[in-house]
């Protein structure tokens, strides 16, 4: 059981980091009142490709920076289009399609089918000081990916920014467009900043997704995580704490799904006495399992079942 929990925690930590990062960015975007970005999926993919290329060229940290830059470009596109008054859903779908297509295109130009995939150096891992010494449960804490450390740090920083800096206060105020404008806040500037933050964080999340554990890019590798991020932000009610908790929840389910594939049944459940059917089951169970069903006569239909169109009598009663 402890081994199961350790495995679950390990896989949940790995998949939580990108969700937390992209979720924090999306939270900034939604708190500033600039709508929501449906295109996180595309940004994640472009960030992942940029991360792998940067990491292969100049080390994993360069990969993170490359992912951030790729995300910034998409964030800028979103901000400009939203400021021009384009439909937000359309921008999101555009970014989603174009990002997925562009990353696949560039990847297949750089590494065509049949040639070896690009393999990039991975991000380093750090142990958690106190928890890594635990006997069995310490295993997942012994090598926590730098991506998760970064995500936790970003969560703390963004909570602080939103709550107690002038920038955060005005960004939240920009959500209430007209009032903020009356108070002399340049709404457009704060929404642009929020969109850039959202794009950059989604790009870094993509880079962490690719360079954190795998070290290579595959087309469409994000596998719908970008849309999961939107769900994370919604169930987290657009707060930092909620986003982190929601990301951990989804990451835990991700880990459970991965673990479920490693075992075909639940032998502990099957053997335990609580699940063995007792001899005196519920009375309704008995006739179904007995070989000769009790000869209860079928109840004769007392009156014909009405068909449609209803009989004339019924129609008359309806119209009367």
């Amino acid at each position: 059981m402890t081994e199961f929990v350790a495995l679950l925690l390990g896989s949940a930590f790995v998949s939580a980091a990108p969700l937390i990062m992209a979720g924090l960015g999306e939270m900034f975007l939604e708190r500033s009142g600039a709508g929501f970005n449906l295109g996180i999926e595309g940004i994640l993919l472009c960030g992942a490709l940029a991360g792998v290329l940067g990491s292969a060229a100049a080390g994993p940290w360069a990969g993170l920076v490359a992912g951030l830059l790729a995300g910034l470009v998409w964030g800028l596109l979103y901000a400009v289009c939203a400021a021009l008054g384009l439909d937000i859903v359309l921008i999101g779908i555009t970014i989603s399609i174009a990002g997925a297509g562009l990353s696949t295109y560039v990847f297949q130009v750089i590494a065509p089918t049949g040639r070896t995939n690009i393999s990039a150096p991975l991000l380093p891992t750090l142990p958690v000081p106190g928890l890594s010494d635990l006997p069995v449960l310490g295993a997942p804490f012994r090598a926590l990916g730098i991506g998760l450390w970064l995500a936790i740090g970003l969560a703390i920083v963004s909570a602080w920014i939103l709550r107690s800096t002038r920038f955060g206060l005005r960004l939240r105020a920009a959500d209430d467009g007209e009032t903020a404008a009356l108070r002399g806040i340049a709404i457009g500037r704060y929404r642009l900043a929020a969109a850039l933050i959202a794009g950059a964080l989604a790009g870094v999340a993509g880079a962490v997704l690719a360079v954190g554990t795998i070290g290579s890019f595959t087309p469409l590798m994000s596998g719908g995580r970008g849309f999961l991020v939107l769900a994370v932000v919604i169930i987290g009610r657009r707060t930092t704490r909620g986003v982190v908790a929601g990301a951990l929840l989804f990451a835990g389910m991700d880990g459970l799904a991965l673990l479920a594939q490693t075992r075909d049944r639940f032998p502990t459940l099957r053997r335990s006495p609580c699940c063995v059917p007792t001899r005196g089951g519920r009375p309704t169970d008995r006739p179904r399992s007995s070989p000769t069903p009790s000869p209860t006569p079928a109840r004769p239909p007392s009156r014909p079942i009405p068909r449609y169109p209803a009989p004339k009598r019924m129609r008359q009663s309806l119209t009367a």
Partner: protein
Amino acid sequence: MTPGVAGGIGFTGLVVAVLGRSRPVPIVVAGLIMASLTTGSNGIQLLSPGTPASIGAVTQGVLLLAVAMALALTQRNRARRGAADD
């Protein structure tokens, strides 16, 4: 039947509905355009192996962006004309 048999067609259907601006006949035209972009890009990859088929997805994205801009422009013009009438 394979797990990915739909291949994102549902998502593309949304795009087609937008491109056709929710009217039946234009939706047929938009569907033909999107489908020809997909199959045409496969043909491009067959004819010139250096070009991946995902160029079709990029083209779809650019097309959608252009249509979104055109929609925003027409709406703005209509609003301006409405304001001028008042």
